[in-house]
């Protein structure tokens, strides 16, 4: 049904989505925590920056990422540590791009979850003898479990659907940066509509299932 190249693209997409989701959750928890509970004067600025990927065209985001990841940017300096020249057009670069691009989809639900949980149970835990990190893992994360799952699923699905940013910073290197969305684009360009159909359908069903799982878990408002 899918040829080897398409299967490879699908596998790469899933790998990228899984890796991005893992990185995102680690980053999003402290960021969402700060937005939900912090009193810092940078809060509003941070919130705006984190929402930027929602409004910027992927090409703009991709352009800046390209500069940042390229030989002249910090990404190039980072790549030089292990003898590379640039992070652009590599899986690592793609991963960094995905994380930036999908950050709001991880931070927003988590932040809402933390806000809904409120400070009350955290204070109760503190009085009962739980230290700060203990409170995060024993009260905040389990208390915001649904939001955590939503954040993970949305990050995963959003990364699967990424196109513009990938095109800008990843290009089309089989096994390295050629993800499903790029492969579909390529099939259409080549007028291979059959292949485009098959690959698109796989992504459609996969994304639907993911979102269905998220929304199925969401409790209905109490009557």
């Amino acid at each position, binding site marked *: 049904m899918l040829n080897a190249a398409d299967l490879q693209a699908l596998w790469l997409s899933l790998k990228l989505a899984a890796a991005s989701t893992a990185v995102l959750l680690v980053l999003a928890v402290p960021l969402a925590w700060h937005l939900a509970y912090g009193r810092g004067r940078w809060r509003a600025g941070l919130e705006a920056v984190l929402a930027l990927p929602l409004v910027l065209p992927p090409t703009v985001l991709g352009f800046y990422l390209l500069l940042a990841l390229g030989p002249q940017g910090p990404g190039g300096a980072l790549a030089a540590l292990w003898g590379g020249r640039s992070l652009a057009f590599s899986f690592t670069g793609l991963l960094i791009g995905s994380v930036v691009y999908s950050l709001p989809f991880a931070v927003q639900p988590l932040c809402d979850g933390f806000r809904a949980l409120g400070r*009350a149970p955290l*204070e109760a835990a503190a009085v009962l003898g739980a230290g700060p990190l203990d409170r995060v893992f024993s009260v905040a994360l389990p208390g915001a479990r649904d939001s955590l799952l939503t954040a993970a699923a949305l990050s995963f699905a959003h990364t699967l659907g990424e196109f513009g940013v990938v095109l800008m910073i990843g290009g089309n290197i089989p096994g390295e940066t050629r993800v499903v969305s790029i492969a579909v684009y390529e099939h259409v360009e080549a007028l291979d509509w059959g292949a485009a159909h098959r690959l698109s359908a796989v992504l459609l069903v996969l994304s639907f299932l993911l979102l269905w799982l998220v929304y199925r878990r969401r409790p209905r408002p109490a009557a």
Partner: protein
Amino acid sequence: MLELDFVLERGAHRLAARTTLPLEGVTALVGPSGAGKTGLLRALAGLERPAGRIVCDGEIWLDGARGLCLPPARRRLGLVFQEPRLFEHLDVADNLRYAARRSGLDAEAQAAIVARFELAPLLKRRPAALSGGERQRVALARALCARPRALLLDEPLAALDAAQRRRLLPHLQALALDGGLPLIYVTHHADEVLALADRVLCIADGTLSGPVPLEAALAEPERHHLGAAGSPAALWRVRVLEQRPGDGLTVVGGEGLRLCLPQIAAAPGQTLGLRIDAADVSLCLSPPQDSSIVNILPARIAGIAPAGQPGVCLVTLQVAGRRLWARLLEVSCRRLALAPGRAVWAQVKGAALQRPPA
């Protein structure tokens, strides 16, 4: 011993606290709503960071000048909030275990707390499946599982309806009567637990005053926001000794005490709370032979104070280790030459005895 010297500002509210408070017995914290009672408890527990100092038994908890603030986890004060604040993702047993594991409470002591608060049937339930009273009972038990050095109670009955209050109150009274754990209890009216207090802390106009001994506070009820507490009621835990249906009486008591009251539905051996209003107690110097009053108890006078009404005074009595008040005319006090330390007989009108209202 808690030494407080701080100023707490929360929005437009400001509370100045400068006092020394013994950490023992029951301390009632009173004051009008919005005076900062909750803020004071939060500052003690470490949830607020006021400017100033808090020292507990020589251990510095807060020292603004040195930028030092001991986190709540290390102060080991239990705090029961107005709302129960249970962990919704854990069942009752795990809520208790949460506290017990962090305090190193052993399983046996934990089982004792479960039994004491009658939580065995609720252990497997999630907080969402509990009534308001049950939740507050779990919150109290959970606070005890943390092995606190003192328990701060912030109007734990405020959010409950009358029936739930009636169910929870005996547990609070038992805690207070045990005397083992120091309690600081916030309330804004003179209720039953106030009658168990040893001293009163008062917040008014942004300033903490006291502690004053309860007897002194009762002498100036208005000033101490005790409302109509010029006539306080004693609250006793008693056991049902026997039922005398022939006489229409229930006999209660314990530890050298025997009281008759109009028959109530209770099984012998059951413990219950008994409210004795100061106006229903009179005193005599020798045991009367021909009084209509059946309850005559040997007592010792602990103090005499004005009752907040001209010509009336309030006598505080000790009866078999319990506290009792008598509201008398000043002329009677003078005629009987009542004075602290004197042994007297307290007559308690049986028909007036009642279980405490919720």
